[in-house]
Structure formats: structure tokens, C-alpha cells
């Protein structure tokens, strides 16, 4: 599934209502929704190529998000691992269900 795309010189993100919105309208909740999709399923993101994003504000936002997700790619399970390791033994011990 694609979460970031570039079309006609504009950057877009796939929001929580499954609709495409320009990247400069994204807020923190939009970012969180992208992160959840990113962690739960395989995602695609259009790369930035020469001049395919002309709007400079969109370029800043798109580029930052794109890079941040790319860095996370190799370390995708960190959120779950970190929290699930907590008290793992105790959960296993007491889990009567």
C-alpha cells in the first residue's frame, strides 16, 4: 500500500479516511496514522526525484517524512519489542486464559 506519493509536482499522503491529501496539510495526527500503517503493513513511498516536487514547503515536509520512515524501515519492530519485553515473564506466568 502506498502512503506517500508525488503527482503533478505535488506531494500527497494517505490519510486515516483512506483519502489522498496534499502533504502540507498533514498534522501530528496524520503523522501518527501514517506511522501505524507503516508498522502494520508493507508500505510504498514515492521517492523524491529531480524537480518532481516544486512546492518548496511541500518538499521540506515530504522529504523529512520520507527520510524518517526510510530510517525506520530497518528498525520497524522497535516500538512493539520495547514495550512487549516489559514484564514478559510475568504476563506469561499469570496469563490464565
Amino acid at each position, binding site marked *: 500500500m502506498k502512503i506517500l506519493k508525488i503527482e503533478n509536482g505535488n506531494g500527497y499522503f494517505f490519510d486515516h479516511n483512506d483519502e489522498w491529501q496534499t502533504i*502540507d496539510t498533514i498534522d501530528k495526527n496524520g503523522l501518527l496514522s501514517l506511522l501505524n500503517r507503516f508498522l502494520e503493513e508493507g508500505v510504498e513511498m514515492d521517492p523524491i526525484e529531480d524537480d518532481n516536487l516544486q512546492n518548496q514547503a511541500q518538499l521540506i515536509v515530504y522529504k523529512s517524512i520520507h527520510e524518517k520512515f526510510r530510517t*525506520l524501515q530497518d528498525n520497524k519492530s522497535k516500538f512493539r519489542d520495547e514495550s512487549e519485553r516489559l514484564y514478559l515473564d510475568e504476563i506469561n506466568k499469570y496469563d490464565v486464559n
Partner: protein
Amino acid sequence: MKKIDFHIHTVQSNLDASFTFCQDKLNEYIETARLDCIAITNHNLFCGDQFASIVKEISIPAFPGIEIDLEKSQILLISDGKDLAGFSRQCDDIAREFNQGCESIDFEKLVEIFGDLSQYILIPHYDKKPAIKKQTLDKLRPHVTAGEVSSPKKFMYCINDPDRLVPVYFSDCRISKRLVSIPIRQTYLDCGTAQFHEIRSCLSDKNKVSLSECDGNSLFQALEDGQQLSTGLNVILGGRSSGKSHTLGRIKAQFKNVKYLKQFSLTARDEEEDDRKFNEQLSQRESLFSREYLAQLQGVVVDILDVDLEEDILTATRYVETLLKHANETEKHDSFSSAALYGEEQFPKSNQKGLTELIGSTKNLIRNEEFREVVERHVSLSSLKSLYVELMRTYVTNQESQSKKTWVNELVESIKSELKIRTAAPTIAEIDLYRIALNIKKVEKFRSIVKAARSCRVILRKPVQGFEIVAEVSPFKGAGMMKSLSKSQVGFSEAFQSYNDPYDFLQKLKNLDSRITADEYHKYFVKIDYRILNKDGFEASGGERSEFFLLQEIESAHTSDILLIDEPESSFDNLFLMKDVNEIIRQMSKKMPVVLVTHNNTVGASIKPDYLLCTKKELEDGDVKWRIYSGYPSSKELQSVDGARVKTHDVFMDNLEAGSDAYNERKVSYENLEN
């Protein structure tokens, strides 16, 4: 009666301070102390040649022995000396163990080296450091019947307790030229000859050991010249400058663990000074209570230290100004400032404290064995476990969500800062309104907590020895009170002006001299005063206060080996108060030797001493002679160590009744009054 000392060091070991053995000093010790038998017991070694030479030089029997570090304690092992070469070889084996770095051998090694332990006299450190452990003692039985103690008090404790070993009291001295004071720590044995088997037999019978030659365990030697004291209550009488306090000083020098209450130490002299000292002493005694009372306030103060309302107002002002500017200068807005993330705020940090506490409580309910039945009557264990698991899962989900938000926050911040660099629009200053609002609430609560903590009331009523200690809280009335609490030269005048607003006051404290550290700030918010009320509920008088402190001091002597009190009556304005003091002194003397100096008849006569001492400064052939006459109060005469005698009746008359004439005069006037 045979007087023995079976704990004498003549060779320096690595456990001793440096010393060189002196044969002449040993001879002097044997002669002065009139010893009948000794044992040489060096630390983890035995020097056969030196022992043979000592035996030749002295006129009394000496037994070869060794003091061994055994299972982290020490034990004397004494041989009959019949096979000196064999004993020497065994001790060499011990020495070898310690030379190889061993710090303490075990029971098995002891048996391996010395074989049948029944042929020796074994005396462990018992009521003496480092004391033998029960497990080691159990292994050594039945070969151990006697144990070494470090004071007459401990000797008596063993004598009176049927379950304890037979006590022995030895010098544990190093015989060298530098030994100035001849030891006074020896034990008398009720045996006809100083033979090994006879001594060993005496050491298994409490009726055959004693601290004195003729008076059993009623008396013990307290001074080098042979002066004895009772193991119970001793009263020293004597005129002014007759050497009473000096005698107490000499006794003090002979013992290690002494409680010495000096003359006038509790006296009230200047009312104001006395009040101050009294409050200080009482506050010190009750400091634990003050600390507990102020503990929560201290926590709040530490938290409030991080709050800076002034800085918060500046931040808010900056925020409003930049926001207005941003709104007014719309012409400067561009695509960068229009991006949604430009003005985005961070996800706030979530706090899982409540949930973690709940998880902890649930865990306690599951683990608790003591009240398992009660808990299970209401909630089944399996329900609790399910609850625990669900809470934990919630916790895990929350943690995961928080990690994600932190990740997003970082991203938001980085995009925002890039957008800000590019835009021409005025930047809106950062603000954490939640934190600012929380700070305001914190300060409000802080003010009300301090107000409540310092509202005047009694917070403690504690009965102590017929008195009542009362603690009261109140606000400080002035800067001077704070200064005296700080015990420094720091001036509190400026800070005190803000005292009514705890938050402002705290800011002023922060600006004070660094001699007042942050962990002490809380003490300046609430004043705690202690008072002592007498039996009738009234404020204790100066004399009553002295009585209270004296009782406390005497009580605290429990852990000492001997209690010395110099003229307790000097601290009292009303001698009827001495009644309780006398009673507690008598009680203490049942547990340890007590020496009381007095020149007052109310004390001296009513306290009923076990032993009476009278110090005298006498002129003999133009020379001043200081003597101590002593004896039982029931005996007609008291005797000094050089044989001089005085009549007990005269001693009482001269020292307690201001002489016979004054006594008779008083007697007549009382009779007249009666008639």
C-alpha cells in the same frame, strides 16, 4: 583463693601495635597485683624459648597458651605444659596457617592440629569483642565451660544468668616497658593450689570464680592501688576539694565503656540561656519526629524548587506577542508558514504512574500469603490474575503508543524548524500551556499545604518517665528564630518579609547564602517546639527539666559498663525531685556498677548504697595525704588501702549533716517545733 590472669601477651604479632616484651615489667605486674598463676597467650603463635625463660624468672606457675583466631572470633587455648615441645610444634602449625594469609581457622582445623581438646583449658571471647558465635560454641562444647568477659558488669551478668558460661575477667595486656598502668583485670578462683586440673575444674563452677578475694562478687578492684568498688551502688562522700571528682576521673580512666555524668552538667544558671539549651537538647532528642513530620513538606518543597512562575509568565507573554505579530503580518505569510506542521504542537507525555501503581497493588493481592483466604473470599485468584494480565496489556499498549508519539514529536520538531528557517512570516514562540497551568496549580497547593503544616497545634504527646513531651507547630515569629535554627550568620530578615507567601519565601531562601542548602529549606517554613510538662500537666520548672534530662542520661547508660555520676543534686533547685532520680539510680545499680558522688544528706542517706567511699585530704607530718576510706555502710569503720581507718558514723555526720554540732542543733530545733 588464687588470683589468675590467663590472658597475657609477651610477643608482638601482626594483630598487635608495636611492643617489646619486658621481663621486669612482668615481675612488677605479678608482684603488684599479687598474682598466683598466669598463662602466656600470644596471638596465633607460641615462643617456646621465651616461655622457658619467663618460667625461670618468675616465682609463680605459668602455663603455655595461645590466643587463636577461630571462626572470626578469638579463643584462648592453654596447655598443662607437660609436653612443651609438642605444644610448641602444634602452635607452629597454627602460626604457619596465619603466615600463609589465613585470617581465621575453622573448628575442624583446630581439632586437626590439637587433637583431643579435653586436655586443654579453652576460653573463648564471650562477652567481649570479637565474641564467639553460637555455632562455634556448640561445636566446642563440652570442652568450653568458661568465657572471657570485658567488664565487671558483664561478669555479673554471666554469674546471674544460669544459661551463661562461667565468666572470667583477664587483663589481655601487652607486657612492655611502656605499660604504665598495672592491669586491674584478674579473676579469683576458689582452689587450694594453682594446679592445671584444679583450675580447669574451678572454671566449670560459677561458685568458684569471683571478682574479689574476700567479698565474692560484691566487690571488684577499680583502681591500681587495690581500691575496690561494689558491683552495685557506690556512694562517694567527702568534703569540698577532698578529691571526689578526681577519684571519679581515676575510675573512668580504668574502664573503656563508661557513662560519666559530670557535675553541674544539667544545671540551670541563666534562665534565657537555659531555655535555649533546653530547647536545643530536646529538639535534638526528638529530631527524628521533626524529620518525620516535615518529610512530606520536604518532598513538596523539592518539587516546587523546579517551578519558576516568573519564567512561565515571560514564556506566555512571548507566546502572545509572537502570536499577535503572526496574525497581524498576514502579508508575510507564505507556503512554509501555511504548512499545517508549522504551528503544530507536540503530543503531550502521558503518565503511567496511576496504572503502574494499580499493577503493583494487583500483584500484591496475588502474592500475599498472609491474607490469601480473606482476599479469595471476595475475589478469586484467577480473576486477579486475569486483571493483572489485562492491566499489563493496557500498560504495554500505552507504552507503545507513547513511543510512537515520541517518534512523531521528533519528526514534527524537525519539520517545524526547517519551515521556520525558510519562512518570512513571524515565528510563534513555543509554549507548553499544560505545564504552565500545572505549575500554577502546584504553587496554589503548595501555599495551602504550608498554611496547614504551620497552623498552630499540638502534634505529639509522649509520656516519658512521668513527664510528658509535647511538640507544637507554629509559624516562625521572626527572622531571628530562623537564624538561630540555621546556627549560622546567615541573615533572614529579607526572606522573612515574604514569609506569609510560601512561594515567594522559597524564592528568597534560594537567593540566600549557600550555607543554607536546598535540602534544608523546608525547615524554615514550620517551627516545631518541644516542651516538657510535669505530672500535673504544667510546664516543667528548671529543676524538673534537669531531673528529666538526668533520668534520660541515666537511662541511656544501659549499654555502658559502669555509670559515674558527679553530684547530681547540684543540678536541682528542689531536692524533693531527687526521689525519682534516686530510684532510677538504684535500679541501674542492679544491672551495672554505679558510682555516685554526693555531699547531700537527702541523696547520700536515702539512696542506701551497697558500698561507701569517703575521700579525705589529710595533713600528716606537714605533708598533704589524699586517702579513700571505704567499706560497707553497715560496718563501723571504713578503711583505706594503706590501712588507715575512720568511723563510718563520723563520715556521715561530717559530710551529710554538716558535722555533729550542726546536726544536734538541728535536731533540737526540730524537737522544739514538734513540741
